[in-house]
């Protein structure tokens, strides 16, 4: 937490600062209405000059939203509604009594934790990339500058040659956060050395992995760190133009990015002759149109140029010939956001964090079946157990942990026996997964691993661009087999066939989309083969997910007759009198799971 202690200094004001999260998650929970209510209430009580309300970017603790931090006390409030505001202002601001009922409760029955710094979710993290999250208004460049923003660019321009910058980056050991983990300094060096009058840099904000939202959150909470990183990169590489390729599903991030670029231009931090040091560099935003393969660098370049976004063979690498044939350097959002801190604090400091091969921190989106879902940043080398049970607070509803999935559709599932694995690029690769962009999906005993493999392959079949045959046809065949297994029609030799196909697809696909497509299947087969055989040989889905293999029923003992299930059943298959055990008519049941989802007493059974 060292990096997150001092509050913003730029507009320091009187008595209190209320930091209201305005990330996508909290906004959907009406946090902007909460902010309006606060403004109104404070105005009404004549506290306008003493209390400042800041709309911050994503604070990462999305499941608890809308959230607010009360400074200087550091009190964390969660799940606020606009109606709660008068009480909150009255109690906390006027009477100085923090309000317990809006505080975080780790688990039912335990006392609430008032301070943000005492909550495990926050205090076990180490914030480098997310150093400004929740502390600045992402739409105000002054607040970024107030937190040491643009000092790195000033230092670089005033006192370092481009070669020295590249050397510093290389020594820092920073590796690409977009998935493959290529050393960033080395990549910059290639592009710098490539012949060409003009060069180009790209920030890859396509974030195609389902279940990951680090890049969105970074841009929403601290867009300037990305812009500053890119300006430093432009200087080191010798590029006059940069693009941010951002996916269209992120409207708020896009808006903040545009605002940030406009403000940076106004301050002379983008455009001609930056800092009066002769650096000319500007950035345009390019909006993607929803295609996973566009995250792959060669495909992204084609997409930028308005051609069919299909990957092409490398070499030539983008560093040799990229956008409009210019040498082009592509890095991920999180990679860029690391750059200013590294330049400011130096390679030695950065490389002291992390493991032998993987330096610094990594941002993960810890989601799925875990108590504290949200965005976490931890040093490389943290164990999965620490992330899932320490920060994540374990599995909800007392269920059993089954696996974590990392690396999106190119990654794999890691079982409970490997919870003590320390996370870095190499360790994850060894167990059959990858670091990927940082999606970390926690799965409990109610998740079917065959279904998960089927899910990822369905995704990949849809997203395969169709250019090369192994990926287009091979992945589709594998998906067909998994569909069959999930439908209860698996054949004895299906597993061998899956493995054989997987090898072909892996070895012969054109780009990494196909090259890594079999991973979800191979890793689930490696650790959860018994689930496959249960589907094929016994016709059972042990997790109770695959429709064709399950039946619902109601336990007469557990049912309290609350009638909820009968009300949600869309086909009227459940009957029963109030306060009497209900019954389910299997001949009518369409297995939609609505009853299972709604029952508060675990009385709906699935087998």
């Amino acid at each position, binding site marked *: 937490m060292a990096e997150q202690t001092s509050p913003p200094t730029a507009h320091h004001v009187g008595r209190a600062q209320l930091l209201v999260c305005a990330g*996508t*998650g909290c906004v*959907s929970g009406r946090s902007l209405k909460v902010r309006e209510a606060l403004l109104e209430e404070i105005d009404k009580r004549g506290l306008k000059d003493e209390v400042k309300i800041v709309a911050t970017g994503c604070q990462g*603790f*999305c*499941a608890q*939203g809308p959230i607010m931090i009360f400074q200087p006390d550091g009190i964390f409030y969660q799940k606020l509604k606009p109606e709660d505001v008068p009480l909150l202002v009255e109690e906390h601001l006027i009477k100085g009594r923090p309000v317990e009922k809006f505080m975080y409760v780790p688990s039912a029955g335990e006392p609430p934790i008032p301070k943000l710094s005492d909550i495990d979710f926050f205090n076990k993290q180490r914030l480098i990339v997310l150093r400004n999250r929740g502390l600045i208004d992402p739409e105000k460049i002054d607040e970024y500058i107030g937190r040491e923003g643009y000092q790195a660019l000033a230092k670089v321009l005033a006192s370092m040659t481009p070669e020295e910058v590249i050397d510093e980056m290389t020594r820092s050991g920073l590796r690409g956060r977009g998935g493959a983990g290529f050393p960033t300094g080395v990549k910059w060096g290639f592009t710098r050395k490539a012949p060409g009058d003009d060069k180009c840099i790209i920030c890859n904000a396509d*974030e*195609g*992995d*389902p*279940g*990951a*939202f680090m890049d*969105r959150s970074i841009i929403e909470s601290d867009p300037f760190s990305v812009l500053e990183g890119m300006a430093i990169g432009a200087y080191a590489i010798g590029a006059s133009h940069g693009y941010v390729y951002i996916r*269209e*599903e992120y*409207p708020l991030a896009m808006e903040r990015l545009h605002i940030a670029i406009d403000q940076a231009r106004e301050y002379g931090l983008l455009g001609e002759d930056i800092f009066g040091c002769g650096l000319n560099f500007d950035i345009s935003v*390019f*909006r*993607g*149109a*929803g*295609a*996973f393969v566009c995250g792959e660098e060669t495909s992204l370049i084609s*997409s*930028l*140029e*308005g*051609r*069919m*976004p*299909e990957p092409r063979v490398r070499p030539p690498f983008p560093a040799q010939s990229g956008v*409009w044939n210019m040498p082009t350097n592509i890095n991920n959002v999180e990679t860029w956001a690391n750059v200013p801190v590294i330049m400011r604090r130096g390679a030695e400091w950065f490389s002291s964090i992390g493991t032998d091969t993987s330096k610094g921190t990594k941002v993960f*989106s810890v*989601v*799925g*079946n875990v108590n504290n*879902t*949200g*965005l976490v940043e931890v040093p490389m080398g943290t164990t999965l157990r620490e992330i899932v049970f320490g920060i994540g607070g374990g599995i909800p509803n007392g269920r059993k942990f089954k696996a974590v999935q990392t690396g*999106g559709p190119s990654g794999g599932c890691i079982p409970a026996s490997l919870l003590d694995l320390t996370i870095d690029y190499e360790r994850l690769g060894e167990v059959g997964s990858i670091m990927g962009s940082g*999606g970390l*999906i926690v*799965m409990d005993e109610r*998740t079917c691993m065959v279904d998960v493999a089927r*899910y*990822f392959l369905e*995704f990949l079949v849809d997203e395969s*661009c169709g*250019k*090369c045959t192994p990926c287009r046809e091979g992945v589709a065949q594998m998906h067909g087999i998994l569909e069959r297994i999930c439908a209860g029609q698996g054949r004895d030799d299906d597993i061998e066939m899956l493995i054989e196909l997987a090898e072909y697809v892996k070895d012969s696909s054109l780009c990494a989309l196909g090259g890594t497509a079999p991973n979800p299947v191979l890793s689930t087969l490696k650790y959860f083969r018994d689930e496959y055989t249960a589907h094929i040989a016994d016709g059972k889905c042990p997790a109770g997910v695959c429709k064709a293999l399950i039946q619902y029923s109601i336990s007469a003992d557990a049912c309290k007759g609350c009638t*909820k299930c009968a009300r*949600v059943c*869309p086909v009227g298959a459940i009957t029963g009198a109030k306060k009497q055990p209900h019954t389910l008519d299997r001949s009518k049941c369409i297995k*939609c*799971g*609505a009853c299972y*989802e*709604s029952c508060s007493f675990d009385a709906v059974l699935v087998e």
Partner: protein
Amino acid sequence: MARIGVFVCWCGSNIAETVDSPAVAAYARTLPSVVVARDYRYTCSEPGQRMITDAIREYGLTGVLVASCSPRMHEATFRKTAATVGLNPYMLEMANIREHCSWVHTDREKATAKAKDLVRLMVEKLRRNRPLAPIVVPVTQRVMVVGAGIAGIQVALDVAAAGYEVVLVERKPSIGGHMAQLDETFPTLDCSQCILTPRMVDIMQSDKIKLYTYAEVESVDGYIGNFNVKVRKKARSVDVDKCTGCGDCFNNCMSRNKISVPERVSVAESMDQEMKNTLDVILEPATGEHGMLISVLQDIQKKYNYLPPDALRYTSERLNVPLSRTYGLARFYNSFSLTPRGKNLVRVCMGTACHVKGAGLILQALERLLDVKAGETTEDGDFTLEPVRCLGCCGLAPVMTINDDLYGAVTQAKLPKILERYRKQAPAAVTPGGTDQTAPSDVMAGETVDA
């Protein structure tokens, strides 16, 4: 009555390891007309051949089937053997149970079953065979290729390269066919002209190829090696030897019948003029610029909430991009729709976090509630239901959005209420659909519009 003998070979272990040769022989004995069937380790060996000749004599066979390797290997061998004892060589057939069976399969049971099938087929053929006598006929060593598209051109060049004369006939005045009309070819998007034009030149330069363009095949008779073909050359009224291809006659021809080049009809006149004006504004900054196609399509989609066909045609025309590319892009990206969307766009996140929290069931519940399949629009045009890859709000899983509103932690039970909000606001009079649809995008945001 045919009297057939069947000889099933082991080929050492080549066949016998995967095919149960004795079982195949036993099966052959049950087939009609088969009077003897044997299996043997090496049928092509001396003793193996003797076994065949002995059987022909002993059983008075009228046909022999050897089930062994490819006829390319030993058909001649066995036919000669059979002929030594007076059997017409064409009454000996082979069933290929090695290359077509044992070598390509691993499952012994299934391979044996397939070998039996092959034997049965060939026995049936033998039952219908008639003794043949070889004859010699002269062959004209010249090849005619009909149609000078890319395939015809390549065949003509290959045959000419092998040293034979070729007659290439093409109905149109010029060669090249469909390939000449394409910009890029599937799936590698190679430039089709770069593939075609060198070959067109080769055709003209080859002294082995006689090219008849603007000519049609009228009749074909005769048989292999001795065809008689009648080709009608249409009146061209141009001395091909003198023509330089300058095109002046073509351009100045007063006749309506401008030879075979279809006239390009601009969509600008036939399309809705209001749409044209709107598009002109969108397209203005992009004209003459590279790489603006996607943002243009995004703007058009924003305006019409889908990509109307005329808009795509007009965009291609103005930006001078092949229509195939514009359509290609429009179909490639998930966010473009080629059919009109409803007034409210319901998107269900299918990200991994949402998946493990039951997004699939939420989508199915919405399909039931709206009575549409994913990707479709309700009949009244109120809702379009679309699954999306990931909305990046994984902490709130499962997530859905309606227009610009995001709903986190949705359950099936909450859905009817959520939808109801948008139904109420839905104005009755605005019906999306058709190319003249001008529903502004703010209608999509679920605001009330005066009917």
